[in-house]
């Protein structure tokens, strides 16, 4: 299989790029692919914390680029799943510590060893984003159903197109079906109407995402949580499987769900 290098980006900050990167990377690895997630956010790294690998950092991407170590010394193997790796970046450097050209050569080196290289891009449209995206062929754009996020997604999609990334797919994150039903939140179809881009996933707003970040365990490494299912579906679609989209309609509660709620155990 041809190695694929995919940048995960959004324009707006705080919409879930790092969470998506960690969860999709883990889900792709669970599907049997050899995957590396690369933190492209020099100076504000967080992929290590979200994946729970922060204690194992010895060398960073910047160390490899500065010649302090080899690239393969920066790889941290995730012990919870086979074939999942992470490359951390430096926390104490700035965006220009990694140039576009350097990123391109890092990516081409990683292509030799991995099926998937996922790059967690920084927010914004400046050099940090451009450098992080330089080595990628494809892009995943994350947005939430909010006007500011959708507007910024539109901007970033334009930039990605001008950089000739293809395909570019959209993930709509943090959907609150109750609000959409009431008409108080943009629905996925509204977002797609506006952005005119292919959809690859819809992720419900799920408090398990916060808990998994607290503990440094990507949700897709467990099961059950709705968001985990959504991210696993995205990973499967990335590998070319035709998975129907999740039903995010507000569910009618059954008898057991109501009992569970009565005891406070429902989520």
């Amino acid at each position, binding site marked *: 299989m041809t190695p694929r290098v995919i940048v995960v980006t959004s324009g707006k900050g705080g919409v879930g790029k790092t969470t998506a990167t960690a969860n999709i990377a883990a889900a792709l690895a669970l599907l049997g692919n050899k995957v590396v997630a690369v933190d492209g956010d020099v100076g504000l790294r967080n992929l290590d914390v979200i994946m729970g690998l922060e204690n194992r950092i*010895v060398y960073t991407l910047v160390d490899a680029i500065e010649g302090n170590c080899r690239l393969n010394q920066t790889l941290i193997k995730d012990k919870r799943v086979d074939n999942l790796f992470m490359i951390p970046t430096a926390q104490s450097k700035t965006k220009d510590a990694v140039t576009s050209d350097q990123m391109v050569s890092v990516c081409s080196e990683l292509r030799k060893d991995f099926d998937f290289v996922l790059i967690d891009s920084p927010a914004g449209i400046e050099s940090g984003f451009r450098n992080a995206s330089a080595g990628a062929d494809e892009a995943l754009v994350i947005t939430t159903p909010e006007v500011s996020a959708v507007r910024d997604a539109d901007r970033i999609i334009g930039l990605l197109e001008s950089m000739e990334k293809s395909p570019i797919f959209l993930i709509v994150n943090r959907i609150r079906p109750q609000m959409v039903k009431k008409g108080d939140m943009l629905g996925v179809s509204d977002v797609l109407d506006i952005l005119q881009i292919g959809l690859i996933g819809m992720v419900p707003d799920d408090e398990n995402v916060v808990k998994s970040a607290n*503990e440094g*365990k990507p949700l897709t490494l467990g099961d059950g*949580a709705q968001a985990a299912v959504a991210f696993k579906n995205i990973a499967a679609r990335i590998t070319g499987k035709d998975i129907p989209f999740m039903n995010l309609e507000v569910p009618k509660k059954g008898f057991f769900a109501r009992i569970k709620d009565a005891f*406070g*155990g429902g989520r």
Partner: protein
Amino acid sequence: MSIKSIISGIFGSSGTHSKDVPSGQTAKDRLAFILVHDRIDIGPGKMDQMRLDIIEVLKKYFEINESQIELKLENEEGSTALLATIPINSVLGRSGKTARRGCSSRN
């Protein structure tokens, strides 16, 4: 076991982690640790390397038990201190056992 946990056990909890420590507390503990390292720009991996280097030096002078050496970073009143507890079994080149609770150093 609480009624709640029995119920969610029976019906299957959709939660990811049902350990005793709430994840918010885990988040706080992890962050405290992460930020100490971020602020001095030395990660846990580098700390391990430093530990090995320190042990190499100490071995020239003392007989020590490596597994008993404790190195940790602590934040006190806005400054960071490296606290080291190094029990010494004996001083090399001298007879008899010297004692116990060793160097505690601060930067």
